[in-house]
């Protein structure tokens, strides 16, 4: 490939492609190809060239890469984590090279863990003119932007089902996301956030006092990417349930590293050591949900995700100890949406019946 312009692309995860693309555009000053929304084809292409029993995020990411390369990207970026995720990059690069694509591959975490400094050094390799102050400014801006998105998403998850006008919250949030692309400064971002947040909070809610509460825990990709989990969040919200999901990108990148000790302490007697990846976090959260009167927990994971499978015997024990039902969902390339929705429906009925029975029991005594 001769000296053509660089077009950068990366795998998709929920709505996070917006801040990431914004950051890359501002800091690297290269063209960014935003990943397309996931389709059946993404998964099919990805699964076709993946090892057969690798976890499903690998297949989605590979599908994203292939689709991006077909659309003209020539620089791909992949991150890494504490489990198999840390080894995705090298295998994916090899698979894509074997398929005959020409591209440059950037592995954000080749040896060390993600720190702002390591990202800066990587970016400096691509854009030599990068200024450290500019990097810090936009790093902080994007960090705040992600935080704002997450706080609004959190509000929608907890209240979306109770809006008097259906889906009105989502519509406002979508408008906020579209407006983010034109952000040019810190004050501009803040203005937008305040405006849309006010609109969001202004919508009338019809929230009964005894609404159902369900917590979603699980592996990060299947918890955060709606396409990979058959959009269970929207499904639950439409059933008038307040959904809590504590896994977010800012949690994974910043809070988690800071609070390692606290997480293990929060897991209490159930875990002495870290289980690897998000295993301990999920145990701590399940315990939290159990203690705070949630009606049920949904645990999502890709098929054969080792850290989550390791957490499951412990989650089963928590489920018994706190008397809280847990639905275990396992996603793979062949998972049918109907099957998942049926299970959610049944779970919802069960949770609702339990709640009704408990209330009657209370009246009697």
């Amino acid at each position, binding site marked *: 490939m001769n000296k053509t312009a660089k077009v950068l692309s990366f795998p998709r995860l929920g709505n996070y492609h917006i801040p990431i693309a914004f950051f890359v555009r501002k800091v690297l000053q290269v063209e960014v190809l935003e990943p397309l929304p996931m389709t059946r084809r993404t998964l099919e292409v990805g699964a076709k060239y993946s090892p057969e029993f690798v976890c499903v995020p690998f297949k989605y990411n590979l599908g994203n890469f292939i689709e991006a390369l077909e659309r003209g990207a020539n620089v791909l970026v992949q991150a890494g984590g504490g489990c198999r995720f840390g080894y995705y990059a090298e295998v994916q690069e090899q698979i894509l090279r074997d398929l005959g694509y020409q591209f440059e591959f950037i592995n954000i975490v*080749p040896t060390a863990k993600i720190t702002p400094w390591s990202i800066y050094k990587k970016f400096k390799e691509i854009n030599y003119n990068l200024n450290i102050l500019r990097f810090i400014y936009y790093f902080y801006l994007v960090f705040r932007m992600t935080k704002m998105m997450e706080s609004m998403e959190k509000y929608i998850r907890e209240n979306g089902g109770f809006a008097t006008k259906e889906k009105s919250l989502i519509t406002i949030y979508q408008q906020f996301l579209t407006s983010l692309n034109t952000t040019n400064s810190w004050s501009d971002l803040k203005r937008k956030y305040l405006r849309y947040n006010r609109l969001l909070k202004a919508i009338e809610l019809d929230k009964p006092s005894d609404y159902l509460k369900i917590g979603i825990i699980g592996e990060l990709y299947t918890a955060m990417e709606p396409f990979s989990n058959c959009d269970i969040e929207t499904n639950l919200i439409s059933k008038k349930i307040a959904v809590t999901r504590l896994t977010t990108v800012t949690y994974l990148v910043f809070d988690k590293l800071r609070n390692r000790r606290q997480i293990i302490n929060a897991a209490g007697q159930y875990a002495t050591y870290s289980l690897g990846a998000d295993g301990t976090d999920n145990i701590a959260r399940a315990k939290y949900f159990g203690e705070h009167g949630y009606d049920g927990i949904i645990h999502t994971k890709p098929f054969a995700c080792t850290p989550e499978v390791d957490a499951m015997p412990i989650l089963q024990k928590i489920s018994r100890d706190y008397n809280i039902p847990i639905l275990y969902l396992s996603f793979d390339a062949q998972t049918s949406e109907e099957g998942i929705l049926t299970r959610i429906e049944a779970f919802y009925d069960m949770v609702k019946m339990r709640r009704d029975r408990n209330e009657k029991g209370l009246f009697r005594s």
Partner: protein
Amino acid sequence: MAKLDIIGIPRALLYYKYRYLWECFFKELGCHILLSPETNKEIMDQGINHSIDESCLSAKIYMGHIYAIINQVDYIFVPRFCNFARQETVCTKFNALYDIVRNTFPHKEVLHYNVDVLKRNGELKGFIKMGLALKKNFFLIVKAYIKAKLKQKHHDKLAHKQQADLINNESCLKMLIVAHPYNRYDKLVGFPIIKYLMENNIMPVYADIVDHKVARQRSLNISKTLHWTYSKELIGAIDYYQDKIDGIIFISTFPCGPDSLVNELCLRKIKYVPMLNLVLDELQGEAGLHTRLESFIDIIKIRKNKQEAVS
């Protein structure tokens, strides 16, 4: 006289890697050891009953071994491994094993040591803590550890030397077995494959019998970002033995996390030798396995004959 403590060691997973270290250490401390029997059908079935259905077969077998001896021992021994240095981690299964066993069999006391070098928990510290938990004398513990460590080193070296001698002296076809020790020694997983190879007059060369330090270094020739130490040792051995072998067999258990990626990369990167990737699960039939091995052996024989004819 006080009753001697009986410590149960499951004959699965890392037992095959650290057997001399563990056995010698507990013997030096004056404890009785109860080793679980070789894997059989019943152990596997019990293991499946006591684990999540998506765990890997090796971990299920481990749970079966624990179940087999748990009622006859005072302590069950389940070490916890996390990392040995930066970029030297292990599969998250080993991070969690101690807590899984503790939660699955809550009525039994679990004896363990923790290796997490990045958090300043070395092997020696772990052994000392474990010895103190057994209420033994500090100096006795250190002495036992040193003795056990030397014994383990001695046996590793001996095995390496024996294998090197065999490779140099034997003229038959040589097949490199790339499998974790817990898969290739296991009576139900790896043993039938090795037995079949031996019956067909093929010498198995084991990838786990190698100078581990050298192997970790040489694994960089195949993969640069690999961070699982045990996988590094295996693929380093491929590089180490590359000009001495006629074929490679990968044995992994379904759905092993590290192997799913590492074996894929090896299959894509290594071009000079025929390879067979065997993935085993609990429903494995022997006939299907033999057919695949037979045809693979035929390919290697034909290839060898051709090479000899040319040269």
